[in-house]
C-alpha cells in the first residue's frame, strides 16, 4: 500500500549524477507513478558486495542494505549505480527489485554505449535508464514480466532488448499498476 505523504526516493550512488539528467528522470517517474520523488546520496559502501571472481557487485545484497537504511517517509526507493550488478544465477542484471516490496536497484553500467566500445550517447542512456527504472518500480508494485515486447515490463536479456521495449506500460500492466497504486 502506498502511504499518503510518502516519497519515492532515488538513492544515487557515486558517479551517477554526472551521467544522467535526474530532473527528467524524476519528472517521468512522478508522472507515471503519481508519487513525489526525492534524490538522496546513497550512504552505502558497495565494496563489501563486490565479488572478486565475477568482478561485479551482488545486487540483492545491496537491496538488503538499502532496506535497512530506508528513510521513514520512503514508500519506495530505487538505487542507481554505475557499476555492474549480478545475482548468482544470472550473468548480469540491469536491475533487480523486490516483487511487491519497497526497494529496487538499476545499474547504468550496461546501459552505457561505452560498455560496448561505442561512443557515449547520453540521450540513449537516459531513455534506457527511464525504461529500467520504470520496469523495476513496476515490480515493486507487484507487476511481473510481460510477454508484450512493447511493454516496459517485458524482460530484457541484453541491451538490444532494452532498446526494443517501449517507454511505458501496456494497457493490462497499467491497469494492474493503477489498482496497486490505489490500494
Amino acid at each position, binding site marked *: 500500500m502506498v502511504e499518503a505523504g510518502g516519497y519515492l526516493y532515488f538513492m544515487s550512488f557515486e558517479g551517477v549524477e554526472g551521467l544522467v539528467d535526474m530532473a527528467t528522470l524524476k519528472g517521468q517517474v512522478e508522472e507515471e507513478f503519481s508519487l513525489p520523488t526525492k534524490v538522496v546520496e546513497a550512504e552505502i559502501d558497495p565494496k563489501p558486495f563486490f565479488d572478486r571472481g565475477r*568482478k561485479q557487485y551482488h545486487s540483492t545484497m545491496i537491496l*538488503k542494505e538499502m532496506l535497512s537504511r530506508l528513510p521513514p517517509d520512503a514508500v519506495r526507493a530505487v538505487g542507481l549505480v554505475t557499476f555492474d550488478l549480478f545475482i*548468482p*544465477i544470472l*550473468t548480469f*542484471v*540491469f*536491475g533487480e527489485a*523486490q516483487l511487491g516490496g519497497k526497494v529496487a536497484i538499476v545499474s547504468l553500467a550496461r546501459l552505457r554505449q561505452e560498455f560496448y566500445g561505442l561512443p557515449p550517447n547520453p540521450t540513449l542512456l537516459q531513455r534506457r535508464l527511464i525504461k529500467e527504472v520504470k520496469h523495476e518500480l513496476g515490480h515493486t508494485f507487484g507487476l511481473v514480466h510481460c510477454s508484450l515486447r512493447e511493454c516496459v515490463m517485458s524482460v530484457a536479456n541484453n541491451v538490444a532488448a532494452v532498446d526494443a521495449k517501449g517507454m511505458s506500460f501496456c494497457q493490462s500492466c497499467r491497469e494492474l499498476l493503477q489498482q496497486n497504486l490505489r490500494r
Partner: protein
Amino acid sequence: MAENKDRCPFLREDKVAFCRAFPLRKPLPFDKIYARENLCLKGEYLRCPIYREKEGGKERTPKRICPFLEIETVMYCDLFPIKKMIPSSCYKLECPCTTERYTECPLFLGMAKGDLSTPSGMEEVGGFSLGPYIYCEGHFWLQEEGGERVKMGLDDFGQFLIGPIKGISLPGRGQRLTKGHPFITLISRSGEAQLPAPLSGDVVEVNEEVERDPSLVNFDPYGRGWLLQVQPEGWSRQRGLLSGEEAKRWLAEEVERLRYLLQSEIGVTMADGGELLRDRLQEVGRERWDLLVETFLKKGGMKNVGSP
C-alpha cells in the same frame, strides 16, 4: 600451467615493440626483431634518421638501446580469424576474455564443444536451445524416426536443471515404458533424480555412448546426448505435446517461472538482465534443487510409485 577460470584459455599475450618517435605507431612482435640488423636495439640507434630528427641535434649521453623504443604487452584471441593485438592495459574489467564470462563467447563455445553436432533450425529462448522437436512438459524432446520409432532426449532446460550429470541409468532394450512412471535415473552433483516417462512404449534402442559418457546429455542434449528410441503406444493419441510457436511460448514461461522460483533472502525479487548461468544452479542447495526437479521435470509423473 594451472587452469585460470577467470580468463579465457585462448587469450594470448605477446610483446610488441614500436618507435615512439615515428609518426605512426607500428607495433612489431618483439621476438621478430633481430638485434643484429636492428639499429634500435644497439648503440647505433644514434645514426637513425628518425632519432636524429626527433632529438634535433641535441647531445645526450648515449644509451644501450634507443630511448624511443617502447615495448608493450598486447593480448589477442587465438580463435579469432584475424590476430587483433590490443594493449593489455586496454582490456577492461568487463571484457569477457579476462573474466569467467569467457565461457559465453561463441568462439570459446565452438571450441569447447569440439565436434559435437549443432542441429539446424535451433533457436534460443531465454538462453536455452529450442529445436524443431516435439516437447513434453517434463522437458523431454521427441523426434519421429522411420519405422514408427520415436527418438527421445532431455531438453536443454532439463539438462540445465539437473546440472553436470555424473551418472545415468537407462532402461534396457525391449523394456516397456509406462507414461508417468520413472524410467531414467540421473545423478548430478546436486542429487539424484528419477524422471517419469513422457510416453508409453517399448524401448528399441539405447544410446550406449551416453551410458559411457553421461556428460553428453549436458553438452549435446539434442545430438549425441539422445537417450532412447522407443516404439510408442498410441502415438497419434498422445496429448500435451508441444512444438513450434507453442513450444517457444511454453519454454519462455518455464524460464520465467524458474527465475521467479529462485527467491532470495529478501523475499521474491525479480531481475531484468542477463541469462541463467549454466553452472550456478548447484548453489541453490539440495532442498530447492529437489523442488525444482519436482516442479519442472516430474510433470505428469506418478507420485509414490510402487506404494500400494
